[in-house]
């Protein structure tokens, strides 16, 4: 693994000051990965990568510029930093710009178990075998599964070092592993449906069994066969865990500082108010041990935190970085996200809807006529108004039973109403991603079809 060099970061901070910056930050990222894909039992691709980048953000008083480069030679980097400082001088002085209050930087960093020390990058042969096992299980599940978009196993390692002229410096490393399979089922009419399933973790041993991933993907493809369009109606809508997570992401976007100070959010001026059904509690927790969205400090070098975003239906906090917190006269919440070379933005860390006590099967049984949604496509979510309209696929429920698959329909409503209409929350929360939710039931939405 290419080591991130703290000495280079410190040198870059000094260079920024020498070039006239009043304050500066340096972010160094080094990453490597291997992706191994198989299709129809044969090797389809192997992809290996190695990247090192350095990003700087410099301040000339309250004016700022950000930059990133893959040039790590000090001679070239010196000119690059000087040019970035010159760019900052051309930017407008922004009263909210600047490094965080130095007192807020963590004194000690928590140990969050973000890296799998035993495994590192999984070698090509083993990675291919895992992908093959998943795909074989999918292809063997049913004679109607005769084609595949393949299966892929990825593993990656990264190292991050961040320092600023407040005197904060810190680093951490992490690993990630994922395995996904995408078999295709075909019925007598020739109509095809893809099923996709994946498992992901920071620790190799926590991955779901490869054959189980393939079998689940196959099941998901098969149950879509014969999907039909239905008549336009209003009915209860159940979102499966992945689809429920997608509306959590939309909510987090509207609760993010930049959307709020731009006036581009339906959650503007709603802090402390009820925005969801009383049973809804959503946590953002960047401190969870070993979780995919955890990190010891955020993109501003501030501690990540655990807090409810929504507590018993009430909007309890916004998600803020230092800049948007200053714009809104609030305190930062440890949600600064950072890509090398970009100014900080805001993102949730680990965001999850607290599970309920009821099984997904019972939720389905509670619906006389309604829609169980397993696929959503498109971008029809308006964060400014909360208006929501997306393409959907899933299963139609008749008398509490999954009756037949449906497709080429949309579900529409408004996020405000949808969160207020969450009637049931399942007990099936699984940590497969940084944003997760159990199955939920929304009392009623418009379903457009024929």
């Amino acid at each position, binding site marked *: 693994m290419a080591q991130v060099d703290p000495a280079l970061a410190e040198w870059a901070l000094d260079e920024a000051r020498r070039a006239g910056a009043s304050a500066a930050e340096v972010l160094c990222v080094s990453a490597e990965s291997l992706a191994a894909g198989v299709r129809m039992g044969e090797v389809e691709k192997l992809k290996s990568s190695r990247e090192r980048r350095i990003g700087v953000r410099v301040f000339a008083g309250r004016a700022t510029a950000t930059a990133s480069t893959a040039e790590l030679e000090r001679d070239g980097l010196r000119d690059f930093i000087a040019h970035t400082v010159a760019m900052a001088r051309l930017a407008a002085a922004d009263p909210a710009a600047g490094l965080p209050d130095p007192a807020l930087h963590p004194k000690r960093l928590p140990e969050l178990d973000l890296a799998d020390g035993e495994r590192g990058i999984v070698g090509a042969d083993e990675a291919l075998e895992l992908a093959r096992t998943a795909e074989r299980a999918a292809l063997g599940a049913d004679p109607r599964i005769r084609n595949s978009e393949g299966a892929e196993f990825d593993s990656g390692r990264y190292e991050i070092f961040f320092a600023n002229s407040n005197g904060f410096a810190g680093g951490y490393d992490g690993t990630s592993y994922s395995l996904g399979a995408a078999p295709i089922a075909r019925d007598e009419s020739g109509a095809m449906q893809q099923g996709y399933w994946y498992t992901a973790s920071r620790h190799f041993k926590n991955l779901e069994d490869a054959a189980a991933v393939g079998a689940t993907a196959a099941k998901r493809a098969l149950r879509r066969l014969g999907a039909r369009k239905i008549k336009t109606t209003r009915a209860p809508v159940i979102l499966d865990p992945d689809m429920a997570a997608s509306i959590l992401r939309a909510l987090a976007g509207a609760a993010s500082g930049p959307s709020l100070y*731009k006036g581009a959010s339906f959650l503007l001026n709603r802090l402390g108010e009820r925005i969801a059904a009383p049973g809804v509690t959503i946590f953002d927790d960047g401190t969870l041990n070993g979780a995919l969205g955890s990190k010891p400090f955020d993109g501003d070098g501030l501690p990540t935190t655990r807090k409810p975003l929504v507590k018993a239906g009430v909007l309890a906090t916004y998600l803020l970085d230092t800049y948007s917190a200053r714009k809104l006269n609030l305190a930062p919440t440890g949600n600064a996200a950072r890509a090398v070379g970009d100014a900080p933005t805001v993102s949730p860390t680990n965001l999850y809807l607290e599970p309920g006590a009821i099984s997904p099967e019972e939720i389905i049984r509670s619906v006389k006529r309604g829609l169980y949604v397993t696929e959503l496509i498109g971008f029809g979510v308006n964060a400014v108004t909360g208006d929501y309209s997306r393409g959907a696929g899933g299963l139609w429920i008749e008398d509490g039973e999954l009756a037949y698959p449906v497709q080429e329909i949309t579900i529409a409503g408004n996020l405000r109403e949808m969160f207020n209409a969450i009637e049931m929350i399942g007990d099936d929360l699984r940590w497969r991603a940084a944003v997760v939710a159990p199955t939920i039931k929304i009392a009623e939405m418009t379903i*457009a079809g024929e």
Partner: protein
Amino acid sequence: MAMANDLAQPEKFFLNRFGMNESALELILGSALERKADYADLYFEYRGAEGLGLEESMVNHTSKSVAHGVGVRVCAEDRTGYAYSDEVTVDRMRLAAQAARAIADRRSGAPPPVAVGSPVARHQLYELASTPLEVPLEERARLLHQIDEMARAADPRIHNVMASFAAERKIVMVVTSDGRIATDVQPLCRLNVSVIADDGKSRQAGAFGGGGRVEWSYFFEGDRWKEYVRQAVHQALVNLEAIEAPAGEMVVVLGNGWPGILLHEAIGHGLEGDFNRKGVSAFSGRIGQRVASGLCTVVDDGTLANRRGSLNVDDEGTPTSRTVLIENGVLRGYLQDRMNARLMKMEPTGNGRRESFAHAPMPRMTNTFMLPGESTPEEIIKSVKHGLYAVSFGGGQVDITNGKFVFSASEAYLIEDGEVTRPVKGATLIGNGPDVLTRVSMVGADLALDSGVGTCGKDGQSVPVGVGLPTIRIDGLTVGGTRA
């Protein structure tokens, strides 16, 4: 940034900058082919980009980046080995070649000799005297301020204005084991305007933008930037008045230009060679079949001057071309990169594209549009008793296997008794790719291409694309509104 005089011969730029020479390139390609592979290539990229953004009447975001690297690809039958590094040194490239060739079986004899060829002739679609990167930052910032002033002055309900300008220059070189070397210098820029309108009761956003492989002066021709501002303001104000959108199947009229995103989602992705070679597209095996009404001819054309989706050569060094996808309603062709063309025994179409050196190429669209028909837009609207007229869209998406696609309207109106009446809220439109165009009953003479804002995502890779459409009437499409 690279000096302009280096760029007359981009191959020299890479050889000088990274201390490469022909024998080093041959050595690395030879190493890539050490096993039983059909083909190998090296993709060198150097990209410089700058951006600035205005919020709350301040140009308070400035950024720049320099990225460079090399990707080594080895193809053996339908297998691809790919390795990349942002350290462009002979040692790193040899390691990458070793990693990439692992997909190929061992061979018995010695690998064939590799010789670096002479440069491939490329189109000259964007030979700019200068790129916006050479325009002083202050001048770029001044335009953002003018946009802010104009939008705020346009209407008292305009509450906030965001404007941004991004420009890049990508220098690329592809060196292949079959003796081709292709180079290109690819400028690209984009100006965006977005506004928030607030009438005390509700808030709405409006956005517009454009650009391409163009010079800075492009934005001032015919006061083009002012049109961007007018469009963004118009959209936000119209949406303040919008009523609930209808739900269900109805006649839909799409305006010209950007609504061509319909073709990109409903048709284009499903005709990409990789999906069809694998037989996983709803269009697989349907060449020669009728998939649209006879009024529809759809092409993908990477050779349009200065367009965002155009390229002199694709990212495998093949000159781009114009590919007829649907001719008078009949499916004619696929979009191909070299590997899929070889495996399907077809010709490459110059559609092998990648986001950057960190990605292997795959078949992608360039500029995808429908050729004009004979109706006037007025006739088309007048023909509709009850329907939806959609003129602007956000993004779209498609499930290529079952053919279902969506695209989301951001500005739309009801048509009642042949007249465009009230604006309706944004709604997603959903349809089935292989049959949506069979329902096209009128095609306008008013073909327009979009203003230069499209970015297409596939398998985690984003590339700039263009779309275009004349006004068309579709006799039935499901509109995903809330009013059932």
